[in-house]
């Protein structure tokens, strides 16, 4: 601190030292670029991207990503992390945030415009955009050199076996535990260890006025839950070679299970859910179990709800096909072909992954790094960090590392998250299938057959476009 003081003393009136300039530039960039900063600039911004003229920093890097569920994470990211990185790399980093549902529209617009941000973050593998982005093999190798292998979910979410390139950089993923009310389940003498247990408990819980909630709507949580339960029953959309294998006994078992679950233990509200609904279901005190990321436990903690200490986090219940869950979101970055800062963007990605311990902590354990050792020490360190969380029951978050390590995989497992899987995901065809069977509109066998036909058409379409 003393040396800074000296430097400022040394400058004459009206002249700023380079350090001071950089500091101000960084602050300026942060202030102007940060979303949610109140009263940041009163002037109408007519000029476009170069709001701050960047006279003092050589480069400019523009990043677009989602509005993180944890506001403090975005605050830290925008006013600390990118500022420091920018100073170290002589770059003004402009970070824009947008709602995760609006990312596809923005991406399409930037592609059409052939201009926009350099780095663009998606929350699911952006396999449909491969023709518009540069392969990121070198960035991936760079990190792998320093941190070892990436996780399986990261690999299958960003690698295209046909082109043999990584079309995205798997920065982070979010594990999807089951969040349940220990007190309510205790009352009925059960726990969600297996889906069978869940089914048995569901009617008792429902009769007690505290049903469980598994969505079957056109939204993200329903997608995640249903993809995951399918895997627990051994039902797969595609095999490791990318062929559609949905029409199977396991799929029928899964669908029949969902039907029984609905009849015995679910209420009609699950058909009309939006992404916030299952959280609200839990927050109201009514819900006794949901499948969701830890945002479901953090909000009750923040609101100091009386039952927040009774919310336990467990891995997804085991099914006849094993125990496997999906990532809640998969943070994948791409660099557009039209970017003029490709090298710098790659450096940003590499540096961010290497510094992932801070990101992991600042996001309150929401973001898990794409690489096994993204947080140095790997899952051992992660377990230690999560166990240190003070919320009761103490150590409850440590299970997250087990879930992330063993029970989290990508959509399209055991195959890759390719563009066909992406379309099936984006058009909510799996929750649709489950809902139609649950409500008796289709038999399980017919639904599986129909899905088979639908998915094969979709796969062929993307194969013809040479993206799969």
């Amino acid at each position, binding site marked *: 601190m003393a040396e800074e003081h000296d430097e400022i003393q040394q400058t004459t009136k009206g002249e700023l030292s380079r350090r001071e300039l950089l500091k101000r530039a960084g602050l300026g960039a942060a202030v*102007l*670029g*940060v*979303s*949610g*900063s*109140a*009263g*940041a*600039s009163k002037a*109408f*911004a*007519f*000029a*476009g*991207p170069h*709001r701050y003229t960047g006279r003092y920093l050589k480069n400019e890097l523009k990043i*677009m990503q*989602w*509005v*993180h*569920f944890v*506001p403090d994470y975005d605050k830290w990211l925008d006013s600390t992390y990118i500022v420091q990185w920018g100073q170290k790399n002589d770059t003004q980093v*402009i970070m*824009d*945030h*947008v*709602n*995760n549902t*609006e990312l596809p*529209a*923005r991406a*399409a*617009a*930037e592609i*059409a*415009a*052939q*201009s*926009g*941000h350099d780095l663009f973050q998606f929350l699911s593998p952006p396999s449909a955009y491969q023709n518009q982005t540069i392969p990121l093999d070198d960035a991936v190798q760079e990190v792998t050199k320093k941190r070892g292998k990436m996780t399986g979910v990261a690999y299958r979410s960003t690698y295209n076996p046909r082109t043999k390139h990584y079309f995205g950089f798997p920065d982070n993923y979010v594990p999807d535990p089951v969040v349940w009310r220990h007190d309510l389940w205790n009352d009925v003498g059960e726990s969600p260890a297996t889906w069978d247990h869940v089914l048995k408990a569901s009617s008792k819980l429902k009769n007690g006025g505290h049903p469980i909630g598994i969505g079957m709507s056109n939204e993200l*949580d329903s997608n995640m839950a249903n993809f995951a339960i399918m895997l627990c029953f051994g039902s797969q959309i595609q095999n490791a070679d990318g062929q559609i294998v949905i029409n199977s006994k396991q799929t029928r078992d899964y669908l029949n299970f969902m039907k029984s679950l609905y009849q015995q233990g679910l209420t009609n509200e699950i058909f009309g859910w939006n*992404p*916030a609904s*299952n*959280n*609200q279901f839990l*927050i*109201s*005190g*009514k819900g006794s179990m949901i499948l*969701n990321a830890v*945002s*479901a436990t953090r*909000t009750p903690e923040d*609101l*100091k*709800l009386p039952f927040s200490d009774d919310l336990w986090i467990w891995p997804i219940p085991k099914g006849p096909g094993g125990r496997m869950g999906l990532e809640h979101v998969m943070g994948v970055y791409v660099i557009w072909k039209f970017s003029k800062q490709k090298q710098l963007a790659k450096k940003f990605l590499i540096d961010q992954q290497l510094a992932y311990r801070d990101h992991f902590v600042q996001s309150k354990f929401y973001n898990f790094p794409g690489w096994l050792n993204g947080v140095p020490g790997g899952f051992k360190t992660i377990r230690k960090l999560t166990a240190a969380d003070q919320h009761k029951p103490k150590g409850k978050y440590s299970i997250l590392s087990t879930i992330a390590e063993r029970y989290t995989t990508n959509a399209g497992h055991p195959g890759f998250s390719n563009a066909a899987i992406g379309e099936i995901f984006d058009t909510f065809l799996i929750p649709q299938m489950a809902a139609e069977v649950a409500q008796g509109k289709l038999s399980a066998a017919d639904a599986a057959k129909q899905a088979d036909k639908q998915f094969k058409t979709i796969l062929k379409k993307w194969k013809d476009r040479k993206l799969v």
Partner: protein
Amino acid sequence: MNAFAHGLKRNGPAWLIVGPFAIVLAFPFYWMVITAFKETTNLYDLTKFPFWWSGGLPQTTANVSDLFHHTDYVKWLENTAFVGVVVVAITLVLAMPAGYALARLSGRWGQGMGVGIFLTYLVPPTLLFLPLSRVVSTLHLHDSLWSLVLVYPSFTVPFATWLLMGFFKTIPQELEDAAMMDGCSRIKALTRVVFPISLPGILTVVIFSFSLVVNEFVYAITFISSSSNRMLSVGVPTELIRGDLVLWGAIMAATLIPAIPLALLYNAFLNRFIAGFTGGAFR
């Protein structure tokens, strides 16, 4: 009959007819007021009476203050107001002459053109926004409010042209002819006689064009990326919905704050515009 009964007889039927509609249409706004001042834990509590605040009085101003202090809400309001005013001005400049021409001067092909202008409405912005974003970036207007100022008239002008055409048609030709016989050129007749009389129509166009600007969503979200440049209809859903946490109270407050003044403004305009018709040249 005493004064009260007399008043009831005169006003009663109107209230009976309009009242139910007003209640149904305005109920969501009542609901927004209640929600905006409710505490979050109260909001999520299923046992509480929802139509009022438990405890009798508004519970918290935290939602509103969060809106003003932790987001760029004020900027969004300013941006929307700015774009609205400029786009309305452009719309009037383009649509008034066009509406007049279609109403008076053109024959059959004019009708065709009128219909053609209207048909542009049928092309959804969810399709147009892609090529348009290329136009916007070529003109270096990306992330600038001027991109919206450029593009919005594309849907306000057809609508305004049609409305004005309808209004100009109701003005008798004799008025202009009289003015021209007195020595005015056609252009002078336009500006000195026709436009002033069609003030009510112009006001209607102002109201509707402004509301179209405020409502627009697709272009606003694709052309603008930074928070401080956002429009109201985009900023609120984008920043007050954080993943799976929806800040209902703040969103309701954010909706009420522009809606009430705008409704008051439209209401005031309506008075002028109806007075303009019943007073004025038709005696």
